[in-house]
């Protein structure tokens, strides 16, 4: 026996249930454009025995495998995209505008070529010094930009660490709120918020998420598995710049953390990886600068300018005058050979003509000093590790063939100072007095002819000399290789970024297929629910009529 009132109860439940369905549709439609929103579905269940319908629960339509995949792809795409952006910035430094380092280098070669034909032209000398200064400045500028980029990246990483810590805190807080609700009602929207935070976190730092029974999630760093969030507790990510290596270091507590994917991994990798594009570019640039300095100085130190100094002081100091020159801390230690130095009187005639033997690993600065000082027309002294040579009064010094690289190594009669891109500059003596540019070479008798441009020509000859990469590449060729390497890195980063973006888009599209809101679908659901609601209402009306009929029978 069933009560007629129970039928009313069925109708009432149906009205309530379909209203809830309508609410869910409305909520879905309202959030159709909300990022990170997961469509919800009211699960209708029949109530046995024949007690109508009820909404069992409102579920978020998700696929946990897709969730994990999306998280991973988000991290990867962020890694590749950020790296691409960084490499593009690097590339811009070497972009081909015809005013790069190669143009500066070509300017120097042109100037010394012109000078080899007109060694006595003071204007050309000035031009040559300016071109050399421009080359050094170009090296310094590019090196400075690379350094600044490195510093910018550290600052960027620091800002991102702050973002990571904020997200970790928010995730922990959402965990706490979700657990506190204990499933009444099901906190779908809080979960969506949490998922959005996790996704944002994955863009900065690769993470892995595991869902706990109480509805909270645990977040660990991908790769290392270091716990970042557990329940209501959030760890703090810290970043420091290693004072020794200058590399970025991340820690959680005492544990070092290496970001596996995400923007932080891109920044750390691009900035610090010795095989990465930035470090590679810095190393290449320094090698090129060192090659330029070494080769130009080697040739320059074997020549003599229009004006001969009465005294010279080495710019580079040795750590010990008694140690072999090869082990005395010089940037460019001399090899084995001889170095010629000639003393001229005021009229340019030869007073002394010395050839100083140098043996790698044996000869010390003191030996050199003694050999020089033994000449009656020369005085040599060592002060602070620097050799000073003074000619007799009224006489002057001229430098000749230096097969050992002795004077270039000590910093005498050089064109450039410094040993890498950062420190490269034109020798102050030459910069102050372009007549000191060594364009001529001593002849067999030790005389200097001002119209002799053979040393300038030898400098110009460095254009085709294969002096880098173990004697296989010219200076310009090496620079071309540098640019090609940067370009290749840019191309690879661009391709990787595109691939990762495509993979992410695909995953996102899979995800949207499952969890996204389709307005058409919702409208259909809306129509269905409306009809169901109308039917239920009709059922209630019908039961009401039945009851009226029943009551009329009774009266």
């Amino acid at each position, binding site marked *: 026996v069933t009560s007629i009132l129970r039928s009313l109860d069925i109708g009432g439940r149906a009205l309530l249930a379909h209203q809830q369905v309508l609410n869910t549709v409305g909520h879905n439609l309202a959030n159709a*454009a909300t990022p990170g929103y997961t469509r919800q579905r009211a699960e209708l269940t029949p109530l046995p025995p024949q007690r109508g319908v009820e909404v069992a629960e409102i579920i978020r339509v998700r696929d946990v495998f897709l969730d994990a995949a999306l998280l991973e792809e988000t991290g990867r795409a962020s890694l590749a995209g950020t790296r691409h952006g960084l490499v593009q910035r690097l590339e811009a430094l070497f972009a081909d505008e015809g005013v790069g380092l190669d143009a500066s280098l070509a300017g120097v070669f042109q100037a010394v070529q012109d000078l080899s034909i007109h060694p006595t032209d003071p204007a050309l000398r000035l031009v040559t010094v300016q071109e050399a200064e421009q080359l050094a400045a170009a090296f310094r500028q590019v090196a400075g930009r690379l350094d600044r980029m490195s510093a910018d990246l550290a600052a960027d990483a620091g800002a991102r660490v702050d973002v990571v810590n904020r997200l970790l805190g928010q995730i922990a807080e959402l965990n706490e709120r979700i657990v506190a609700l204990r499933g009444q009602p099901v906190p779908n929207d809080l979960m969506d918020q949490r998922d959005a935070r996790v996704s944002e976190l994955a863009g900065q730092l690769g993470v892995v998420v595991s869902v706990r029974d109480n509805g909270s999630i645990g977040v660990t760093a991908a790769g290392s598995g270091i716990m970042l969030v557990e329940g209501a507790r959030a760890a703090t990510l810290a970043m420091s710049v290693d004072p020794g290596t200058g590399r970025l270091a991340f820690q959680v507590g005492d544990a070092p953390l290496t970001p596996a994917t995400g923007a932080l991994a891109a920044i750390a990798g691009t900035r610090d990886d010795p095989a990465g594009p930035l470090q590679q570019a810095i190393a290449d640039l320094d090698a090129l600068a060192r090659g330029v300095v070494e080769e130009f100085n080697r040739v320059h130190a074997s020549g003599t300018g229009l004006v001969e100094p009465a005294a010279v002081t080495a710019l580079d100091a040795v750590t010990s005058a008694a140690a072999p020159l090869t082990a005395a801390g010089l940037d460019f230690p001399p090899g084995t050979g001889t170095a010629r130095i000639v003393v001229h009187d005021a009229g340019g005639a030869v007073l002394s003509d010395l050839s100083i033997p140098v043996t790698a690993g044996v000869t010390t600065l003191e030996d050199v000093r003694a050999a020089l000082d033994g000449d009656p027309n020369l005085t040599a002294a060592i002060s602070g590790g620097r050799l000073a040579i003074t000619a007799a009064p009224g006489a002057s010094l001229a430098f000749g063939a230096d097969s050992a690289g002795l004077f270039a190594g000590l910093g005498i009669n050089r064109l450039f100072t410094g040993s890498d891109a950062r420190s490269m500059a034109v020798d102050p003596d030459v910069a102050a007095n372009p007549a000191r540019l060594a364009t001529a070479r001593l002849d067999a008798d030790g005389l200097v002819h001002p119209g002799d441009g053979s040393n300038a020509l030898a400098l110009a000859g460095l254009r085709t000399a294969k002096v880098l990469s173990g004697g296989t590449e010219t200076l310009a060729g090496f620079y071309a290789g540098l640019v090609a390497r940067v370009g290749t890195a*840019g191309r690879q980063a661009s391709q990787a970024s595109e691939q990762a973006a495509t993979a992410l888009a695909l995953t996102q599209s899979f995800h949207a297929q499952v969890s*996204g809101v389709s307005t058409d679908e919702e409208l259909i659901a809306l129509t269905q629910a409306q009809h169901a609601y109308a039917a239920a209402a009709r059922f209630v009306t019908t039961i009401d009529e039945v009851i009226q009929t029943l009551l009329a029978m009774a009266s």
Partner: protein
Amino acid sequence: MRVTNLSIGAQVLRELQRGLGAMARRQDQLASGRRLLTPSDDPAASARVIVTRDRRAAVEQWARNIAEARDRLGSADQTIQSLADAVTRARELAVQGNNATLDGVARAALAREIDQILEGAVALANEQRPRGDFLFGGQESTRPPYVAARDAAGRITAVTPNPRGIDAERTAEVDDDLLVSTGVAGTEVFGAPADTSYAFAVLIRLRDSLDADEAGVVQTLGLTADVDGTGAAAAGAYLGVDAAGDLEIAGPAGTAFVRLTIPADDPVSTTAPATSAIATAAAINDATAITGVTAVATPAVFTVPSAAGLFDDIALAAGDLVLNGVDVVVNLTTGNAAANRDTFVAAVNALSGQTGVIAAAGAGLGMTLTASDGRNIAVQTAAGSGPGSVAGEILGFAAPPTSATVVARGSVRLSAGELFTTTEFNATGQVSGEGRAGGIGGALADLADVQDRLLEPQALVGARLSWLDLLEERGAAESVDLAATLSRLEDLDVPRAVQEFEQTKLAYEAALASSASLLRLSLLDFLR
């Protein structure tokens, strides 16, 4: 497959972004006209651009160097041509001056013109380039290659090259490791100072010969003694004209070779063969009928310097001092040097009838011995360290001669009514000094050498210039190739890029249109 609005939106957005990005890139390329905007556009091409540009810079540099070398060589060519013209003019003047009908005033005018040519030649030799270096200065570009010494009247007396060397090559690189000399060595053009055809010396000689004093047509042959002032054997001592053709005289009446075949017949010479001025004059006079040139011997003079004499405690016995074959025997032991000197002078003069030598006291303790008829003065002293050698030292000799040695010869003065030339063929050159006519004739011959020498540098410069032309052509061809390569590497193929841009645009427009209509579609439009 379930499609949602959000995924459609994202997809559409991504596609539109991609299309817009492609269009922006094409637009960048079209706006700049360059295919390579960043190295990653084509890393290999970017590297090749740098290497190619490096090569192009070198080729352009070589072209500039070739132009510079040509400029310098062209200047050298012109200067050598100017010099050749000047030498040709000097030859014309020399030929004019070598004419007997010309009077002294006309010759002086020629000398003035030669002087101008000489000044011009020095100026040409020191020609400076616009940048201040010297065309013939070699690597000594701050010092003039030739320095002229001038007399009080400002006339050039000698021109000497820069002792630091003027012939070091100046070079320019015109191709990989290929150097071309951009100048001509001054010595190749003007000759070395030691050459008889040293251009400046020849011009100076010609000028001075033309300008010689016009007091009759005379020429003096100086005859070198056997010993010099210290008693050492003199270079080029006169051996006489005993060989056929030793001396050619071209006089107004004709030309003859003078030969002295009979030294023993010379009545006054004391040595054989007869090498005295008087014997030479006689031989020349023997040919006067043929040549029209007469000769006069001038005295032989031997001067004993003041400090040389040892007029103390010497008793000269027979054999101690033999003057022109006669023993001078005299006792010089008075202890007074001046008195001894005077005694010696008197003793020599007492023998004058036999020796032909007259002595005279000179300044201090000095004296002179003169053979006024032009015979030689010959001396012999005893060997060893006795009075004989002391007697030699009286003459001022460190090593007194122990056999009859000519210590002084006279000279021979030739004269004729008109111009004549003497040419001396004896290899050791015993005749020194030239008359005017001989100077002009000799200078004429040397001028021909000067002119001939100019041919070589001219040919050299010409060859080098045409070689440079060849190199320039090759460089220009390579330059065009490199420009083409660079253009291919970095320049945009504009028609193709425009076409691709249009295609990209079309695709973008299609995407826009289709997505617009897709996004507009909604069930809402159809629900009541």
